[in-house]
């Protein structure tokens, strides 16, 4: 069969459609006009016009994380590409599969400082998993298919394809995905059998085991989640999760200890400190999780399952590295566990749980809602209670509200929680929610936001208006960059330098200006009604929830401290001054 002839621009659309992509988030410009022309008058690929390229990438991330599929972005050359850089870095840090097509000036102008030229492959090299500059139409179909393959295989990540305008206008032969195979990239997905044998022996010998699961479980797919739950239930071990991994283990499961790390629960962090066998499944010993490294779980034997060998022994030396995809590794591990009829020492396990229950008894997330001011924790707890039985997706911005959301919004399913973990990108949550809503038009999509973060990508109100996306923005408004303020209070002598948010807009009027619905809650007594009104409004809604301004997020492991040096509340503050060394850390 003779291969089909078409322009580069038509090929781009065709390749995306053949790869199963049905939505692309983008913003036009001179260099990508041929692609926009090809988009015109076709129905297979839906284009969502964002208001800023950063929003396009976060929207694609939201789409990808809530569906388990690849997100797609289309931006123009120069400023279009540079505006996408924050989103790309975010996707790289959180291992989110995104394909980002960038326009480029024609090949003969590259290097000439042409209008809207930027060295896109140079700029995005360190913030993508891989990138390509397409120099001829012959390479185009292969590169497009390869880009999707690379983005979605192994540890997922963003891939940029830079497309010079002359390549988009040239005609060439299209090649279908089945004819393209990457010449060398074959990530290891199955673990070596001897490692699995060793893992089974280690786990079976544990007296104080803990499962520490991360975003790798979510990325590996729903089967991986099922297997994680099975392993936890089979062994009876407690399980904690990173910020990225929330939802893999149900938040309500009695064996789930909540999130660990800097703002994790007392029981999760002390269990990590005191365990004798740690089973890390798809997490990466991030500094927000480990705290002070020389005091991180000092007496445990550590098993680390990860698809990326460079995550192993990067921060923490482990005893048993297992390279592979979580789904495959857990499948084989559980099969072996069952074949060997293994079980844990029940007496030891009982004692371990008794200890954990003691820690749980501290009720580290306790707060008191009294008086006429809404506590931020209460706001999120009520939001949780009123939305938990619905088909709900949660995104967050970055800061105190994000940590409170992680603590108080218990997730029962994977792919329902979209938050910027690694990069900590303020302004992530709102465009991400937009992407989630595009993928799940009938679901309830809520961005739990801080007012300062929300301001960073607020222009996307126009996008949600255009596409009738009924996204709900739940603004936990304390009029501060709350986490900055908290650190200034605890670490910088209460000198609140530039962290107060002056001149905030009237969010209710702002919502109305964009054709959305604005609501305000000032009083704890009216909070439930306002949340219900938000849920019941079939339009985009901003709920400006005015909360206690001075509230801090606890528990907290101060930077440079160990897991057992956790501050449980304001009273703990003076217990131990933060060391010079700790002040340097962020």
């Amino acid at each position, binding site marked *: 069969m003779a291969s089909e002839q078409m322009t580069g621009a038509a090929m781009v659309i065709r390749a995306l459609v053949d790869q199963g992509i049905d939505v692309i988030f983008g913003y036009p410009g001179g260099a990508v006009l041929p692609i926009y022309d090809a988009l015109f008058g076709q129905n297979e690929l839906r284009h969502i016009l964002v208001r800023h390229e950063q929003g396009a990438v976060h929207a694609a991330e939201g789409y990808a994380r809530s569906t388990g599929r690849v997100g797609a972005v289309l931006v123009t050359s120069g400023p279009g590409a540079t505006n996408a850089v924050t989103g790309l870095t975010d996707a790289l840090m959180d291992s989110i599969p995104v394909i980002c097509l960038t326009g480029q000036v024609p090949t003969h102008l590259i290097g000439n400082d042409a209008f809207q030229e930027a060295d896109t492959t140079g700029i995005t*090299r360190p913030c993508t*998993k891989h990138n390509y500059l397409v120099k001829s139409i012959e390479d185009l179909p292969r590169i497009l298919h390869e880009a999707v393959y690379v983005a979605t295989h192994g540890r997922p990540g963003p891939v940029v394809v830079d497309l010079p305008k002359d390549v988009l206008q040239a005609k060439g032969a299209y090649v279908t995905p089945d004819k393209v195979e990457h010449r060398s990239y074959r990530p290891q997905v199955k673990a070596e059998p001897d490692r699995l044998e060793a893992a089974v022996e280690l786990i079976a010998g544990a007296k104080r085991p803990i499962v520490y699961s991360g975003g790798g479980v979510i990325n590996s797919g729903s089967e991986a989640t099922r297997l994680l739950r099975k392993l936890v239930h089979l062994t009876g071990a407690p399980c904690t999760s990173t910020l990225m991994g929330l939802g893999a283990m149900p938040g309500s499961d009695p064996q789930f200890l909540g999130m660990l790390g800097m703002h994790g629960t007392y029981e999760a962090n002390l269990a990590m400190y005191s365990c004798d066998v740690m089973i890390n499944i798809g997490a990466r010993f991030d500094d927000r999780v480990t705290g002070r490294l020389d005091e991180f779980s000092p007496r445990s034997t550590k098993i680390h399952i990860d698809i990326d060998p*460079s995550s192993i*022994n990067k921060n923490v030396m482990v005893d048993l590295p297992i390279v592979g995809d979580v789904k495959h590794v857990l499948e084989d591990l559980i099969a072996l566990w069952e074949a060997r009829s293994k079980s844990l020492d029940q007496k030891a396990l009982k004692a371990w749980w008794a200890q954990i229950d003691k820690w749980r008894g501290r009720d580290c997330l306790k707060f008191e809602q009294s008086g006429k001011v809404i506590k931020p924790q209460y706001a999120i707890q009520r939001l949780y209670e009123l939305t938990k039985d619905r088909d709900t997706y949660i995104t967050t911005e970055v800061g105190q509200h994000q940590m409170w959301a992680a603590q108080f919004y218990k997730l029962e399913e994977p792919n329902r929680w979209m938050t910027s973990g690694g990069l900590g990108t303020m302004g992530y949550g709102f465009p991400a929610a937009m992407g989630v809503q595009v993928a799940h038009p009938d679901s309830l999509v809520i961005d739990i936001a801080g007012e300062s973060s929300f301001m960073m990508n607020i222009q996307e109100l126009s996008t949600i208006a255009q596409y009738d996306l009924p996204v709900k923005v739940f603004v936990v408004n304390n009029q501060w960059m709350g986490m900055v303020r908290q650190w200034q209070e605890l670490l910088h002598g209460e000198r609140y330098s530039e962290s107060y948010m002056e001149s905030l807009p009237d969010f209710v009027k702002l919502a109305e200006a964009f054709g959305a619905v604005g609501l305000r809650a000032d009083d704890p007594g009216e909070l439930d009604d306002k949340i219900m009104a938000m849920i019941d409004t079939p339009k985009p809604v901003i709920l400006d929830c005015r909360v206690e301004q001075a509230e801090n997020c606890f528990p907290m492991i101060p930077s440079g401290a160990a897991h057992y040096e956790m501050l449980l509340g304001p009273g703990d503050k003076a217990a131990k001054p933060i060391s010079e060394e700790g002040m340097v850390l962020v």
Partner: protein
Amino acid sequence: MRNGRARKAKSPVSPKIETEIEKRIIAVLVDNEPGVLARVIGLFSGRGYNIESLTVSEVDPDEALSRITVVTSGTPMILEQIKAQLGRLVPVHSISDLTREGPYVERDLALIKLVGSGEKRVEALRIADIFRARVVDAGHDHFIIEMTGRTDKLDAFIELMRPLGLIDVSRTGVVAIARGPEGL
């Protein structure tokens, strides 16, 4: 580096207790495609790893494969990270830690330009002969010596040439290959 002592390595921010800094020769087989060298170098600079020398050249035109030889130093944990991070780059086919994986042959090539005449010139040529270096170009008042060998041998030779009219040196950096019948 000119005088051959490994630059006092400023260890990258490492969470582990400092251990001995080691030097390694790492060979990397990569797709010969635009930007591949920038990826490798960017990885080293972005993560604060040391590069003592780095060479690259196409070695298989039919398969479009290039080989990069990089001499680096760090703690064992950092060195393991370097290899793992290199392995993550999509165009990388294989990586070999030649220093650790067994015997290997390493060579460095230097072109050394000297000016002068009379006794200094005679002395320089005499030493070049002892070191089995070759004169590859000569004029009335200058000449160029080519020398191949291990890095330390080149270092020693260049030190000897310094008082004898050395004005310019160009070196390839280390290239290396494992002994034995296997390829990379």
